[in-house]
């Protein structure tokens, strides 16, 4: 069997590892338009911050391709997939045939059309290693940086370059930072932390136009800047498969086996949309754990196995200047607020299920809450009062503990 994987990041690597779980010898071709050994995309801000380096941020070891017998083709952009002939074509003219194909093309930063944007001298996005290296190159101690978007990527960028420039202003249309994962009560805590570290936040505003190194805001404010970084969101890279005839919505549509609507073609990661079981909605969950698991699922199935991944939920672990937060699921239903001593913990529950949570500060054992959401564990089957206070296995039945900790097998 010959497998082609497009994309050399979390989903693509997950697919290689999935295939190799079953078949040590199937042929694997891995193509990427980036020229690097597989690297951890979320670490680009840590790179600028000096908390990692190009060597340590490699997502897998140097011998990964060799050990997994992968023909790695860096710097090859795939421009066409022909499902009828089962062939792909790259920009350089290379043609390859496949038995099964994975599209793991990720997402691209979205740039809103704003008058004058083309004339901005130092305009960047923050989604790839090349983006990060170019930004680093342009920054000086004197730079005034304007970041558009106070989401995860914009704020991580701000943290990463904090010591590399003079001034950072972050603007967002929303009335708070991290509006997709924090509510109005919790977002100000993070905003305060950012402000304490010299990052200015401008809520409920957007750029009306760029003129002579200044952003003219809708509110009438004028912000002079030297460097602009646009981080307003990402869009799934669906074009290749859309053109080939696959069903797409916001992202490429896949089932729980990571199959697209086209035969022998799978898709995984940021380029797809999938079911968020905490809300019951189709969503683009542009998150690394999700990308890996979808890729691995595709790989196992491409190798002839039968594997499904059915429990996607939104989930984020992120920290700024030493203040950590973990959030997961959907903020629906009743709220149980267990915040104390400056630590935030809000649990959202409905219909006997934990739906979501927000924790800031003390995030110890948060994964136990994540498991309640992901595994849809009926709250009536555990000691909810206890677990709401302290996440732990004490709140579960003795049978659960015997199985998980004790290795006891009960007959089913």
């Amino acid at each position, binding site marked *: 069997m010959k497998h082609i994987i497009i994309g050399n990041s979390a989903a693509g690597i*997950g697919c290689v590892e999935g295939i190799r779980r079953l078949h040590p010898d199937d042929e694997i071709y891995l193509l990427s338009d980036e020229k690097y050994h597989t690297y*951890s995309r*979320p*670490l680009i801000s*840590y790179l600028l911050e000096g*908390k*990692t380096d190009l060597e*340590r*941020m*490699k*997502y*897998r070891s140097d011998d990964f391709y060799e050990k997994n017998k992968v023909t790695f083709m860096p710097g090859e952009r795939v421009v066409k997939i022909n499902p009828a002939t089962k062939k792909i074509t790259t920009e350089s003219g290379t043609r390859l045939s496949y038995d099964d194909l994975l599209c793991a093309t990720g997402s691209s930063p979205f740039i809103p059309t704003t008058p004058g944007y083309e004339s901005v001298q130092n305009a960047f996005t923050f989604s790839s290693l090349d983006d990060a290296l170019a930004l680093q190159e342009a920054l000086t101690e004197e730079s005034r940086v304007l970041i558009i978007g106070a989401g995860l990527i914009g704020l991580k960028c701000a943290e990463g370059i904090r010591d590399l420039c003079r001034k950072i202003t972050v603007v967002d249309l929303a009335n708070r930072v991290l509006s997709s994962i924090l509510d109005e009560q919790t977002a100000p805590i993070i905003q305060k932390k950012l402000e304490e570290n010299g990052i200015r936040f401008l809520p409920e505003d957007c750029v009306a136009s760029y003129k002579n190194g200044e952003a003219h805001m809708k509110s009438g404010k004028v912000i002079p800047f030297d460097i602009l970084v646009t981080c307003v969101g990402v869009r799934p890279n669906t074009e290749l498969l859309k053109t080939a005839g696959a069903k797409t919505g916001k992202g490429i549509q896949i089932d729980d086996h990571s199959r697209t609507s086209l035969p022998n073609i799978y898709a995984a990661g940021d380029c797809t949309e999938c079911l968020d079981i905490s809300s019951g909605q189709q969503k683009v969950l542009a998150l*690394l*754990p999700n990308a*890996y*698991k979808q890729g*691995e699922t595709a790989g196992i199935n491409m190798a002839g196995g039968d594997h499904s991944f059915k429990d996607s939920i939104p*989930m*984020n*672990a*992120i*920290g700024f200047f*030493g203040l*950590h937060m*973990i959030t*997961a699921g959907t903020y629906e239903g009743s709220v149980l607020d267990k915040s104390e001593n400056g630590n935030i913990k809000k649990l959202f529950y409905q219909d006997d299920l934990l739906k979501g949570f927000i924790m800031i500060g003390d*995030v*110890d*054992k*948060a*994964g*136990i809450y*994540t*498991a309640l959401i992901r*595994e849809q564990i009926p709250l009536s089957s555990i000691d909810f009062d*206890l677990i709401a206070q302290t*996440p*732990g*296995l*004490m709140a579960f039945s*003795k049978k659960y*503990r*015997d199985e*998980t*900790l*004790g*290795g006891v*097998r009960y007959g089913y």
Partner: protein
Amino acid sequence: MKRVYVNEKWCLACHLCEYYCAFANSGEKSMVKALKNLKINPRIHIEEKNGISFAVSCRHCEEPLCVKGCISGALSQKDGVILIDQNKCVGCYTCVLSCPYGAISPTETGVMQKCELCTTNASGTPACVKGCPNGAIVFEERGTV
């Protein structure tokens, strides 16, 4: 593969496993030097309430959510043992978000630590098991988790 299993019936909540764990991973030769007057930060933790107690440490899952979700590639699975490369870890807490047992926690420097079954320290076999006075923690082959 051999794993650490606990039998909560025999656990005395003496917390010795926590001390042995902290000692084994301290790199110190003397237990006094490793533990005395220091707040220990072990990789195994006792949960206790109303006379029930048990130790919790990494289950070394066959389908490890921490490894699959690790954004830096610091967590890996080698011969069934889940290892962390602290040199690669940036302390993002995605593994804390992912682990259903609460078995991964930060070190003093902010990177993560977890039970590696004492395969990477001088103990060689799990120190918590050796140190448990009542046989409540064992190291055995019992199939999958």
